[in-house]
């Protein structure tokens, strides 16, 4: 239970790996989740282009993914992870289940943010002859930026929580360290230190999200 240079280096690498995992998977999850969220809103029965069948099928799939506990999903999709990442262990492999779990979560986050956009503003855009596509990228998305930034902070911290679980299936990062040293080897101090580092990361991300959201919100003066 020594705190030598090697341990410090391990924790530093773990921190970087964790940051890499959360941001890589957040970016990819947004690439998938954002359009899905938009589709959910647009195809809603009160949306700007109602398509009830599409909406219900998509909602159903998202609900299924959302209801599987992450630790189970992690194991269930191991074959898919191997097919995509070529391996099931290490940082890159971890990104696959993280994206699979975060994308539907993000879709719901985006959905609720876009639904907050004032229906009157959408109607005004329609009265100006805006197309569905223009309403999406000129009204819905820009008007919901502050809410979505808050949502992003919450999403990223949730992903961070999930990265810790990937430690059990051989994922890297601080979660892996906490599991391998703290859980399997009873090295409580290392576990505590990794947990503290995780807490610090969460605080920073949350604070940054709130600040950014406030800064670009023109509604409050």
């Amino acid at each position, binding site marked *: 239970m020594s705190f030598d240079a090697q341990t410090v280096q391990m924790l530093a690498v773990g921190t970087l790996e964790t940051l890499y995992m959360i941001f890589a998977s957040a970016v990819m999850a947004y690439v998938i989740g954002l359009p899905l969220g938009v589709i959910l809103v647009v195809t809603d029965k009160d949306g700007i282009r109602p398509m009830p069948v599409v909406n219900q099928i998509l909602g159903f799939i998202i609900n299924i993914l959302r209801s599987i506990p992450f630790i189970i999903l992690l194991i269930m999709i191991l074959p898919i992870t191997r097919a995509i990442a070529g391996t099931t262990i290490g940082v890159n492999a971890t990104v696959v289940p993280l994206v699979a779990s975060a994308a539907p979560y993000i879709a719901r986050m985006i959905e609720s943010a876009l639904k907050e956009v004032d229906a009157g503003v959408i109607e*005004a855009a329609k009265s100006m002859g805006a197309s569905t596509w223009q309403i999406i990228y000129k009204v819905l998305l820009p008007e919901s930026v502050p809410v979505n930034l808050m949502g992003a902070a919450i999403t990223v911290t949730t992903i961070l929580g999930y990265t810790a679980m990937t430690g059990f299936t051989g994922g890297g990062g601080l979660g892996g360290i906490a599991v391998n040293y703290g859980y399997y080897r009873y090295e409580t101090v290392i576990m505590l230190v990794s947990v503290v580092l995780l807490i610090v990361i969460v605080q920073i991300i949350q604070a940054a999200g709130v600040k950014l959201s406030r800064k670009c919100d023109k509604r409050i003066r």
Partner: protein
Amino acid sequence: MSERNTIIELSHLGKEFQGKDAKVRALRDINLKIEAGEIFGIIGLSGAGKSTLVRCINFLETPTEGDVIFDGRSLKSLTEKELREARRSMGMIFQQFNLLAQRNVLKNISFPLEIAGVPKKQALERAKELLEIVGLSDKARSYPSQLSGGQKQRVAIARALAGNPKVLLCDEATSALDPNTTNSILQLLKEINQKYGITIIIITHEMKVVEAVCDRVAIIDQSQIAECGPVSEVFHNPKSQIGRHFILGDALKEISFDNQLFYRIIFDGLEATEPVIAKMALACKFPVNIAYASTKRIGDKAVGQMVIQVPERDEDRQKVVRFLETERIPYEEVEGNEF
């Protein structure tokens, strides 16, 4: 006015909504011709169908029956793309202003131009011009949340005018504003109508809005047009019960009718300066009870109305009627239980 061209024609327009259990009828056989360059009022109580009507004019709501002919084109026959283009010739303003909260004033105004594909620089220049027209040049960089209600509506008007529309649709545009601000917005609308010849359609539930700026008015009640005509004509001689309701306006709040009979007397021009009631009292030899009186400006004429209590004795009543008829003062009976 008869020389003017029709810019919008509503023919046999109807709208039915699919409610939870049954169909709900919002509009029934609406026929209106709106002439180019006029300010046309559509007045109705809440739930009468006026908001649906204005949304049918630019097809934000697709009518279930009938058609809208805008500038010679049947909107029903247009493809979605053509319809979007047609909408650009119809500006619209709303009760709740509906500005984009995350865009500053200038970018709100240039928004419809952006949608229409006008180059950014050109759009912003046009926005600046419009901002000047509505008198808010100093607010270009402000955000909607920093503006008062009246200022927001001015921005919304500028935005609605950006694409040089032929028609401006106003959906309860002054209903969220205080009386002073309402007047200034109405004056601005009138100015825009006179300066640029834009046809304006005003949807409202307030008779004073109609009286202040409209040339003609249609009264909508229970999904149908109850009556339609020049404002002063409707004011002098309302044909429908709902028309009388709007014209009596405040009087209704102030007199309790209790099934009694009243006469509503209308003055305009000269009579307004003559002591009519005093003369009536002298001629009829009994005191006349005034239940309500007001003077207002309709178009550019001062018009007054007065509600007097009708004597109970038949003989006295005859005297009053005779007096009013010899003096050629328009009057009509108003009965309490009508309302």
